[in-house]
Each structure stands twice: as structure tokens, then as C-alpha cells.
């Protein structure tokens, strides 16, 4: 596709592509052009990003009573089409409300085995023989980890390093640490190939570790 980047008709077409309001034929023609033109691809990405940002401009509004229950009923029906599943998830809703209201704590627990992945596993994080947090992970090869660190600390950011069973070090990136910070990351190795997870300060010292002796026995929730 040969285009004149100053042609007002082309600029309008490109804008409508980014807004998602052009028809299929025009869309396919422009998509082909975007594959070849970095300038247009960048411009489309910028406008699409602005449009997504504009969704944040609407004020909050309170739905009617019972809305939350209706949403959870829909999800429960889709998760497992049985009345029992619906009862379970709504029971969790009631329990979670009570827990959040009284102690402000969210516990991520699976009330019953989920259909696709049976468990989440967890392991404590240690620092100087004290438990300072928890690592949660989904087992298997397409895995993730959630790391929660409770301890107040002078270190506010750490690198999360995975030590594999072959001794390889895999850096997952830099994350917040301490005072209740929690975050998640994809885990690029299967959990049974993980020997240890270390949280390392910017100066290179190990702030917390899952420990190697415990790693082989992820406890199933």
C-alpha cells in the first residue's frame, strides 16, 4: 500500500483505525500498511493508548443492591454449572466480607479444588531464621509466583532471583519489598526445577530466601 502521510483522508483513516471504528476491508488494508510502516504503527499505538486511558475518566458509581451477588452467581455458573459451586463461591463472598471487615486481611485460599489447577503451593521466606513473607506458586510449567513480604525493612526494592536445580540463576526483575508489599511474576521454569528463590538487595546481599532445604516440599493448599 502506497500512502501519502500528509493526505487528510489517510490521516482520518489511520485515526479511525486506532479508534477501532473502521470496517473490516479498510481495517485489513491499513493493518497491512502498519506492518511495513513504523511511523504509522507508533501513531496508532499512541492514539489507542489515549483511548484506553480515557476509560479512566468516568466517575465511580454504586450499582444496586445485589449486584455483587448476581456477578458472582454468573461466574459460579460458568466455573462449574452446579448449584453447589454457586453456594460455595457465595459462601466465600460472605466469609471474605466478614474477614475484611474485622481484620483487614485477604487470604487467598482455594475453597475447593479448581477445575484446571488443583492447588496453589506456598513456601515461607526466611531472613535470619525469621519468617518474613511467603512465596505462592502454581505448580507446573506455565507457572507464576506471588511474593508477599511482611517485614518492615530499610530495603525497599529487591531483585527476585530464582536458583534452579542445575545452579542457573534466573532474574525475575526488581520489585517492592517489605511492609506488606506483594507482587507477582511469571515463573520461567517449572516449580520442580526450582531450588531456591532469593530476594537480593541493590548492594547484592540476600535479604530473604525460601531456603534450599524446604524447596522440595512445596505444601499444597
Amino acid at each position, binding site marked *: 500500500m502506497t500512502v501519502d502521510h500528509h493526505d487528510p483522508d489517510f490521516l482520518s483513516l489511520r485515526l479511525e483505525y486506532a479508534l477501532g471504528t473502521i470496517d473490516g476491508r479498510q481495517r485489513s488494508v491499513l493493518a497491512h500498511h502498519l506492518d511495513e510502516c513504523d511511523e504509522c504503527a507508533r501513531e496508532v499505538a499512541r492514539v489507542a493508548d489515549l483511548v484506553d486511558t480515557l476509560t479512566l475518566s468516568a466517575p465511580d458509581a454504586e450499582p444496586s443492591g445485589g*449486584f455483587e451477588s448476581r*456477578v458472582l452467581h454468573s461466574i459460579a455458573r460458568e466455573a462449574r454449572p452446579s448449584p453447589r459451586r454457586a453456594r460455595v463461591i457465595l459462601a*466465600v463472598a460472605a466469609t471474605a466480607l466478614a474477614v475484611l471487615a474485622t481484620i483487614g486481611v485477604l487470604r487467598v485460599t482455594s475453597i475447593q479444588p479448581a477445575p484446571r489447577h488443583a492447588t496453589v503451593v506456598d513456601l515461607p521466606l526466611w531472613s535470619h531464621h525469621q519468617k518474613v513473607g511467603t512465596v505462592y506458586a502454581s505448580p507446573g510449567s506455565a507457572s507464576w509466583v506471588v511474593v508477599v513480604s511482611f517485614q518492615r525493612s530499610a530495603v525497599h526494592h529487591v531483585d527476585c532471583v530464582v536458583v534452579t536445580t542445575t545452579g542457573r540463576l534466573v532474574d525475575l526483575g526488581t520489585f517492592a519489598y517489605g511492609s506488606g508489599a506483594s507482587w507477582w511474576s511469571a515463573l520461567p521454569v517449572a516449580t520442580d526445577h526450582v531450588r531456591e528463590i532469593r530476594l537480593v538487595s541493590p548492594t547484592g546481599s540476600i535479604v530473604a530466601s525460601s531456603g534450599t532445604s524446604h524447596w522440595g516440599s512445596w505444601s499444597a493448599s
Partner: protein
Amino acid sequence: MPSFDDSPAPSLSDEALVAAMAERHDAATVAFVRRYQRRVYGLARALVNDAGVAEEIAQESLVKAWRYASTYDPRRASVERWVLTITRRVAIDYLRRRRADPRDPVEFLNVAVASSDVPFDERVEHGDLRDRLQAALLDLPEEQRRAVVLASLHGRTAAEVADLEGIPLGTSKTRIRNGLLKLRAHPLLEKEPQ
């Protein structure tokens, strides 16, 4: 079973919540719905006239977020933007295919300005991205503001905006384009990471 023992345990971050929801953890799903229902319903209510239809849109959006939680990529967008983008798409489907009655495109901004005892200017000065976005939209000439919201949030084509506003197609295109360019260059939004 995961345990926070008696530590001052935190609520999970948005990203961790979606990761746990993707693994079908019921408590995470409940917490996610509870955390986002007002944001999602607020956007739906800004776009359609009928409160019941807005609830249908919000419900469908939250169910879709649950269904596709495993596809969420934190490198691409915040959880808030992700779930509101889903809501926008569901709302556009309702407006276009199911003929939902659209709300006046800029009425939600008037609601936002009047929604607090704190003067709007003060909220913008100390406020979050939402306050600054609202202020930036309100800085646009009204005809551009209407055209931008119709095209971006309501998903209207330039030709449809022309019909709705009773203006020539060329004028419609110009209003949308100029409005978006002004927003992008607005000082209140300049520092926002894109």
C-alpha cells in the same frame, strides 16, 4: 494452605489478585469483583442512559475479566485500564448491536465535577489521573469534547458523529482529530506514562 499467620498481612496488589483469579481462587475472584464493581459500573453508567442496562454491561464485563484473567499481561496495562477497556468494548457492543440508549456524551463530566464538596480545581491540583483526565476533557471546546467522547468511549464512527451532531463529515473528522491531539498535548496529562 497459604497462611498469613498473625502478621500484619496486606491485601494483595491488583496484579497478584488477577493472577490468583486466573488460577480460579474463589476468594481472589470475590475480592476482585468487590474492588472493581464501582469503577466498572461507573464507566457503563457514563455511557448508557438506563441503569439496568449499565448493570448488565458491568456484569458481563466482570465475568469476561474473570474468564480471560489468564491473558492479562501486567507489562501492557494496569489492571484498572485492562478491566475498563473490557467494559468499554462490552458497552460499545450494547450501544451498536443491542441498540442501548446512549447517555449524553459529556454528562458524566458534569456529574464528576459536582460529585464532591471539594472544589474541582483543588481536586485536580492534588488529584489522581482521573481528576486530571476530566479536567483535560473539560478544557476542550465543547464540540470537540463531545466528538472525542462519542468516537473514543461510545465507539462512534466519524460519519455517525456527523449524523448525531448534525454536522458535515469533514467537520466531524476535524473535531475528533483536533480534540485528540489537544488531549494528548495537554499539560495535565503530559507526565502520565503511556
